[in-house]
């Protein structure tokens, strides 16, 4: 337990994290209430600050998410019908389009921030352990684990291939040679990733893996967790109340 705290730099039981992330995400994703989205985003930021994990890492991942959201901002305001608030060139932006894009931005950021800060720092085995403690079927956990490994493997293979290209003097240009090389790299990447994950599966078999994950360190609900559970529950109640107020 002590080691887990050291390595992950946070104190919340992963089972609590998973359940909270799940409930929070469902509420935020289903709500179309602007106030719920705003409060959700604020609570996710507070959460991150309290947990104080690697803020730079979170910002980097948020950047990627928000690049996609930026694309929404370029499309949604101009394609949603409604009263017009401004126009650029011949394009007319509608009020409802803008508020729709805003809602999506708030909601996705709230969910992503919560998920990253609660789930990404404890290490894959802690997550796997927590999932299995929550009685998730082993097959599903297995798929999840392999998916994680596969992504990691693909990424590290990509790094290796890139270095291989560099030392052989490859410089990207707008030429047929460059595009063909990119094609080869992509192909090699998929094949290598597939092969490597198969080999890892073999390695797991060789060490007695039979579809069950056993972990060295057990989770115990401690005082920190009780505080966390209390605050999380409170936040969820607030969000639900906001949501229902609107409905009534």
């Amino acid at each position, binding site marked *: 337990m002590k*080691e887990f705290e*050291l390595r992950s730099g946070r104190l919340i039981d992963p089972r609590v994290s998973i359940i909270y992330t799940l409930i929070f995400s469902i509420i935020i994703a289903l709500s179309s209430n602007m106030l719920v989205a705003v409060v959700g985003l604020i609570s996710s930021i507070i959460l991150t600050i309290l947990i104080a994990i690697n803020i730079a890492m979170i910002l980097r991942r948020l950047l990627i998410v928000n690049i996609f959201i930026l694309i929404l901002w370029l499309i949604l305001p101009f394609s949603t019908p409604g009263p017009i608030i401004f126009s650029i060139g011949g394009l007319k932006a509608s009020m409802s389009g803008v508020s729709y894009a805003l809602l999506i931005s708030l909601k996705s950021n709230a969910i992503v921030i919560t998920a990253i800060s609660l789930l990404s720092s404890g290490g894959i085995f802690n997550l796997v352990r927590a999932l299995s403690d929550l009685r998730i079927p082993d097959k599903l956990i297995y798929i999840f684990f392999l998916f994680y490994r596969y992504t990691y493997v693909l990424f590290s293979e990509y790094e290796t291939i890139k270095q291989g290209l560099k030392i052989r003097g490859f410089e990207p240009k707008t030429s047929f040679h460059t595009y063909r090389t990119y094609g080869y790299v992509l192909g090699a990447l998929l094949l290598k990733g597939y092969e490597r994950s198969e080999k890892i599966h*073999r390695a797991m*078999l*060789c060490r*007695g893996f039979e579809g*069950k994950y056993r*972990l060295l360190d*057990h989770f115990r609900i401690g005082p920190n967790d009780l505080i966390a559970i209390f605050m999380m529950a409170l936040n969820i109640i607030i969000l639900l109340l906001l949501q229902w107020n609107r409905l009534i």
Partner: protein
Amino acid sequence: MEQINLINLKGVCFGYPQRPDLLSDLDFTLNFQERVGIIGPNGCGKTTLLYIIMGLIKPRRGEVEIFGKTRREEGDFKEVRKKIGFLFQNSDDQLFCPSVKEEVAFGPLNFGVNKEMVQKIVADTLARVGLSGFEPRTPYSLSGGEKRRLALATIFAMNPEVLLLDEPTIGLDEETVIRIKEILKSPGLSYIIVSQNRLFLKELTDIQYTINNGKIKRIE
């Protein structure tokens, strides 16, 4: 545990899909407390042979008998994998856990060893390969030789009855090679070592084989 034949392959044929037979009608035996070396050119099928013993690939024809029982189905190999420790030629293929400690603990935990015992096994085995203090490190971030040592530790931690080591000393420094040699020289072990280092094999094994045209041949 006085079995004479630990591993017994009879008339094993194997070829990868869309390729000619790599191993044809191969017979091979590993006796109790026998120490066997395999040497041979790249691509002659050494690694493939070890995969067949571990049940990771299945032969086209022939019989794989291990610990006195014929092994055919996936289920037959559970006992085999528990009792035979296999060191992959490439350590990157072997390591998959997020920390060195979990990596070593993975095998023993799968075999139902209790937690306190596992903690002790982890500490002991890491000390044995000279990786004490590496527990929280990520295996992917280790150097090539350190990965090799960790891979060896994961196998020693399972306390296997037989060792299959595919190029165990590749990339290891002199001191570590000496340490590994000492471990391998302890009496009573049964193992197969694949290596390109003739002297290393001479020193550590009683019999040396090579694979030629799909058959295994003893080197005199």
